[in-house]
C-alpha cells in the first residue's frame, strides 16, 4: 500500500481521463451502431425487394404437374394402351446421414445383382440439389417395396415414389399400330416446348403414340408449394390442374387384328383391312411383331440389338412401309383404266398363245400359264388372271394414262390420314424414270407395270385402300386409324377425288369377274371360295422376287426361302354392300391364290359372319348369300 501512495496517484486526473475516454467510447459506440443501422437500412429498405424475391423463391417452388396420358381403345372400347402405376426408389441426399452406409444397406435390402450395383452407385453420385429427390432405381418389385417398408426406419431420405407407366396389354400384335412411348431424348427435348413437357418423362416414339402425341399428352398443370429448407412440401399455395390427354378410340378391331396376326403365324407378311364406307382401318397387321413394353422404360442394348439384327425385321412396319410389287391384284384397276380410257370394251377378245410380243420386238412376255389361256375377254382375263391380256391392255394404254389412272386409286402417294410413317410406294411414270435414272421409258417396261410388276411398288395399306375404293364404286374414302378423339368423331377429308365412270355397269362387270375369281369354275382362288355365304370379290397376286439386297449374307437355306414369290391377295365383301376390304401379303410364301387367299377369306368371315366364322358350318345360309349365280364349284 505504501508503494502505491508513492506513485503520484492523481485521483482527479484519473476521473477526468476516464470521463474523456467514456465520452470517446460512447461516440465510438454510436458510430458503430450507426454502421449497423446503415447496414440494416440498406438491407431492409433499399434491398428489400431483392430479398423479398429471394425469400419467396426460397420458400415457394413451382412444381409441374404432368398430365396423365390419354388412353387408347379399339373401336369396341377395348383398352389397348393403359397407364400402370410403378414404383421408383429416390434419395434425398440432404436427409441421408451416411451415404455410403445407406447405399450399402440398400444394395443388401434390394438384393441387387452385381451388374446393377454399378449403375446404382453411379446414379447415387448424380449432382443434384441435396434436398431434391434423385432417382436411384425404377420399377421396384412388390417384394422390394415390402422389404424397403420394413427397413424404412433405417433409411431416412430414401423414398418409394409412384409413377404412371405406359403399358400395352396386347403389345405384340398391336406393336406397329400403337407404336410406343419412351423416355424423351436430348434431340426431342431440343424441339419440345419445355414448359408443356415439364414433368413429363415420356413421349410417343412411333405409331399412334407418335402421330397423336399432342392429343394424348394433354396440358401440363402447375402447383405452387411452400417448402422448408429441406425441400419438404409444407402446403400448397395455388394450383392449376393438368388437363389429361384425350382418350383415343381407334378404328382398329382388336379381335380382327389378333386374328390377322395369328393367321400370319409368325411369317413375314402383312394384312390390312379397311371398312370401305368410312375408311376405318379395321386391322393393320405387320408380322412378326415385337413386345413394345420394354421400350417404355428403356430396352437393354442386347435385347434391342437382337430385334434389330433379326432377319425377319420385326421392328419394320410392313403394313405401311413394306413396298411390294402389287402384282396381279391390280388387274381389276387395269381393266377399269382400259374401259375408262376407251382402249378396250368388255367384249374385246385377244388370243393368248402363252406369251405376248411387242409388234416390233422379238422378246416374249410370258403368261403365267406357259401354254396360254386361248381366247380371253375382260371377264375371263380377270378370273384366270391372264397376263397376256393385260400386257396388251397396258401397251394400248401407254405408261402415261396407266400411271395417271392408278394414282387415282392412291398408288404412288400416301393418302392415309393419320398413319405414322406411311410410305408413298411407287407408281412409275415417264417423268419419274427420267428423274430417277435419266433414261427414257421403254415400251417393254409398260408391260411389266401392266401386271403390277416392274417398277410398281405398293404398301399393303395402299392395296387395301385401292380395294376399298373399288368396293365403293369409285368414291374416295381416306384410310385412318383414329375413330374418336376424346369422344369427338374423326372425319378425315377425302385425300383424293373419286372416280366417275361413263358407264356405271363397268363396276358391276369388274365385281362379277372378282366374284368369279372366288367362285367361278376357272377362278384362281376358287379353293378359298368354298362355302361362301356372302358375295366375295377377290383377286390374287404372285410377286416375283428377283434380287437380294447386297448386305444380306449368303446362306443357302435362307436364300432359297427368300427367293420364293410373295403371295398377295386383295378382296372385299359383300359385293352389294361392302363392309370390309382386305389386302394380304405373305412374303416368300408362293402363289397368292393358295397362300394369301385363305387368310383373306378368314378375315372376311370373321368380320361378316356372326360368331366365330372359322367354325361356322357352310350350310348356314344368311339371306344375302343367295346370289344370282349358282354355286356349283364346290371343288375344282
Amino acid at each position: 500500500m505504501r508503494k502505491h501512495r508513492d506513485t503520484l496517484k492523481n485521483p482527479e486526473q484519473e476521473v477526468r481521463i476516464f470521463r474523456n475516454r467514456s465520452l470517446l467510447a460512447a461516440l465510438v459506440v454510436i458510430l458503430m451502431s450507426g454502421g449497423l443501422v446503415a447496414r440494416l437500412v440498406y438491407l431492409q429498405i433499399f434491398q428489400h425487394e431483392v430479398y423479398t424475391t429471394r425469400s419467396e423463391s426460397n420458400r415457394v417452388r413451382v412444381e409441374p404437374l404432368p398430365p396423365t396420358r390419354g388412353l387408347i381403345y379399339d373401336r369396341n372400347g377395348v383398352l389397348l394402351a393403359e397407364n400402370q402405376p410403378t414404383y421408383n426408389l429416390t434419395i434425398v441426399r440432404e436427409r441421408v446421414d451416411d451415404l455410403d452406409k445407406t447405399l450399402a444397406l440398400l444394395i443388401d435390402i434390394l438384393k441387387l445383382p452385381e451388374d446393377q450395383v454399378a449403375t446404382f452407385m453411379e446414379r447415387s453420385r448424380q449432382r443434384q440439389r441435396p434436398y431434391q429427390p434423385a432417382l436411384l432405381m425404377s420399377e421396384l418389385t412388390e417384394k422390394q417395396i415390402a422389404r424397403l417398408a420394413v427397413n424404412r426406419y433405417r433409411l431416412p431420405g430414401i423414398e418409394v415414389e409412384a409413377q404412371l407407366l405406359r403399358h400395352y396389354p396386347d403389345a405384340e400384335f398391336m406393336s406397329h399400330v400403337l407404336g410406343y412411348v419412351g423416355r424423351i431424348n436430348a434431340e426431342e427435348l431440343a424441339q419440345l416446348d419445355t414448359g408443356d413437357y415439364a414433368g413429363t418423362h415420356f413421349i410417343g416414339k412411333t405409331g399412334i403414340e407418335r402421330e397423336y402425341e399432342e392429343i394424348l399428352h394433354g396440358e401440363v398443370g402447375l402447383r405452387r408449394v411452400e417448402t422448408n429448407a429441406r425441400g419438404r412440401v409444407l402446403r400448397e399455395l395455388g394450383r392449376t390442374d393438368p388437363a389429361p390427354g384425350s382418350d383415343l378410340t381407334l378404328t382398329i378391331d382388336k379381335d380382327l387384328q389378333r386374328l390377322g396376326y395369328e393367321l400370319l403365324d409368325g411369317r413375314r407378311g402383312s394384312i390390312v383391312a379397311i371398312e370401305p364406307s368410312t375408311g376405318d382401318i379395321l386391322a393393320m397387321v405387320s408380322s412378326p411383331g415385337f413386345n413394345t413394353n420394354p421400350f417404355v422404360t428403356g430396352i437393354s442394348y442386347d435385347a434391342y440389338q437382337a430385334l434389330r439384327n433379326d432377319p425377319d425385321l420385326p421392328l419394320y412396319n410392313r403394313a405401311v412401309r413394306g413396298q411390294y410389287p402389287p402384282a396381279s391384284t391390280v388387274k381389276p384397276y387395269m381393266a377399269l383404266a382400259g374401259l375408262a380410257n376407251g382402249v378396250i370394251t368388255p367384249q374385246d377378245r385377244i388370243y393368248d398363245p402363252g406369251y405376248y410380243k411387242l409388234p416390233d420386238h422379238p422378246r416374249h412376255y410370258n403368261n403365267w400359264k406357259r401354254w396360254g389361256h386361248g381366247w380371253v375377254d375382260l371377264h375371263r382375263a380377270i378370273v384366270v388372271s391372264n397376263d397376256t391380256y393385260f400386257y396388251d391392255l397396258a401397251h394400248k394404254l401407254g405408261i402415261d394414262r396407266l400411271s395417271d389412272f392408278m394414282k387415282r386409286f392412291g398408288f404412288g402417294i400416301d393418302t392415309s390420314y393419320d398413319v405414322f410413317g406411311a410410305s408413298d410406294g411407287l407408281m412409275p411414270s415417264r417423268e419419274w424414270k427420267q428423274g430417277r435414272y435419266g433414261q427414257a421409258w421403254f415400251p417393254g417396261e409398260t408391260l411389266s407395270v401392266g401386271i403390277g410388276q416392274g417398277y410398281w411398288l405398293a404398301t399393303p395399306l395402299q392395296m387395301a385402300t385401292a380395294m376399298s375404293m373399288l368396293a365403293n364404286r369409285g368414291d374416295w374414302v381416306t384410310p385412318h386409324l383414329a375413330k374418336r378423339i376424346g369422344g369427338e368423331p374423326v372425319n378425315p377429308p377425302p385425300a383424293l377425288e373419286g372416280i366417275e365412270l361413263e358407264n356405271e355397269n363397268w363396276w358391276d362387270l369388274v365385281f362379277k369377274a372378282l366374284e368369279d375369281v372366288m367362285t367361278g369354275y376357272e377362278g384362281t382362288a376358287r379353293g378359298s371360295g368354298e362355302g361362301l355365304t356372302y358375295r366375295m370379290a377377290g383377286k390374287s397376286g404372285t410377286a416375283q422376287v428377283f434380287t437380294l439386297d447386297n448386305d444380306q449374307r449368303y446362306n443357302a437355306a435362307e436364300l432359297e426361302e427368300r427367293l420364293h414369290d410373295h403371295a398377295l391377295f386383295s378382296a372385299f365383301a359383300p359385293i352389294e354392300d361392302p363392309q370390309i376390304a382386305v389386302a394380304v401379303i405373305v412374303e416368300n410364301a408362293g402363289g397368292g391364290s393358295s397362300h394369301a387367299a385363305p387368310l383373306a377369306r378368314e378375315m372376311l368371315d370373321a368380320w361378316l359372319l356372326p360368331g366365330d366364322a372359322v367354325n361356322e358350318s357352310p350350310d348356314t345360309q344368311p339371306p344375302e348369300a343367295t346370289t344370282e349365280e349358282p354355286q356349283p364349284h364346290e371343288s375344282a
Partner: protein
Amino acid sequence: MSLHDSAVLHYGRGSSMKRRRTLWSRIHLDPWLLALLLLLLAGGLVVMYSASGQQMSVVYAQASRLGVALAGMAIVAQLSPAMMYRWTPLAYAIGLAMLVAVEIMGDIGMGAQRWLEIGFIRFQPSEIMKLALPMMLATYLHRRSLPPRVRDVLACGVLMAVPVVLIAKQPDLGTSLLVASAGLIVLLMAGLSWRLIGCLAGLAAAALPLLWFNMHDYQRQRVLTFLNPESDPLGAGWNIIQSTTAIGSGGVFGKGWTQGTQSQLEFLPERHTDFIVAVLGEEFGLAGMLTLLTVYLLIVGRSLLLANGAQDTYGRLVAGSIALTFFIYVFVNIGMVSGILPIVGVPLPLVSFGGTSSVTLMVGFGILMSIHSHRRLLPR
C-alpha cells in the same frame, strides 16, 4: 479491510447524497439498468418463441436459465467491490488453471475442447476469463498511477496474452478475440496514450498474416466465405445468404411475429441461437431492429454512466469494460448476422438461447451494480 456496509462516502461526492439511501441501493440494484435488462429479456423470450419454431418448452428452458442468470446478478451485486478486488487474482489464477486443464484434455480428446465438466456442471473456462481478465487488469492498474506507462502496458500485455492464446488454441478464435478486446478496453479506458495505441494498432496489423497462417482450415474458410458468400451458396455461404435474406425481406415493419418464412421454414440456420437477430429482423423489420438496438444502447449508456460514478480506478475500469464489452458482443453478433463481419460464434447477448453466456453477462451486470451501489473506498 473490513467489510462494513457503505457508511463511508467518497470524498468527491456531494454530501447531499449522504443519507439518501433508497430501497434500491439497499438491495444494491440499479432500477434503470434492471428495468432495461428485464425489458430485453422479456423481448428476447418473445422472439425466442418464434425462433424456436413456437415451442414453449424452449421458451421455458430459456426463461429458467435467465432466472438463474438474474439470481446470479442479484447475488453478485451484494458482494462488495473490495471483496471482488481481493479475490480477482485468485479468480484469474483459477481461470488460467482451467484453461490449461482444458488444453491438456483437448490434446487427449482431439479437436476443439472448450468445455470442462465438474460433477454436474459443464461450463467453458473461457467464460470466466471474459470477466476475470478485465478485472485482473483493473486490479493491476488500480495500483498504478494512470495513464499507464509502457511498463504497465507490457505487464498487462502478458496478463492478457496467456489466457487469449490458450483460448485461441482451443480453438475458439471468436472468444479469444472478445476476451482480448475486454482487456484492451480496460487499457484504453485507463488512458492509454495515443502514441501507444498507435503502436499497438501497428503491431496488430503486423500480426494479422501470422494469425492467418495459424488458423485452422475451417476458420480460414469462414473468413473467405464472409468475403464472398456466393462462392459456396449451399455450404458455408448458406448461413450468411439466408440470414441477410431473412433480414432484408423483413422490410420496415417485418412479416409479423411467427410469420417469418425464412425462420419458420428453417431456411435460417441456428435460428434460436447465434442467428436469432435475423428472426427479429424478418418478423419485426427495421422497426424491431432499431428498438432492439435502442434498448442495447440504453443499457450500454446506463452502464457507462454507472461506471463514471464509480469511486475508484478498479471500479471504473471494471464497470467500463463490462459496459463496452457488452456492446462489442452486440455489434459482432448483429454485424455477422447482417453480413458485415465474418461468422464467429458469438451469441446475441441475453437473447440467444444458452445458459453460460447469459449467466456471465448478468454476473457482469451484477458486478457493475455492486460497484455502483457499494460506496466505499478501496484501499489505495
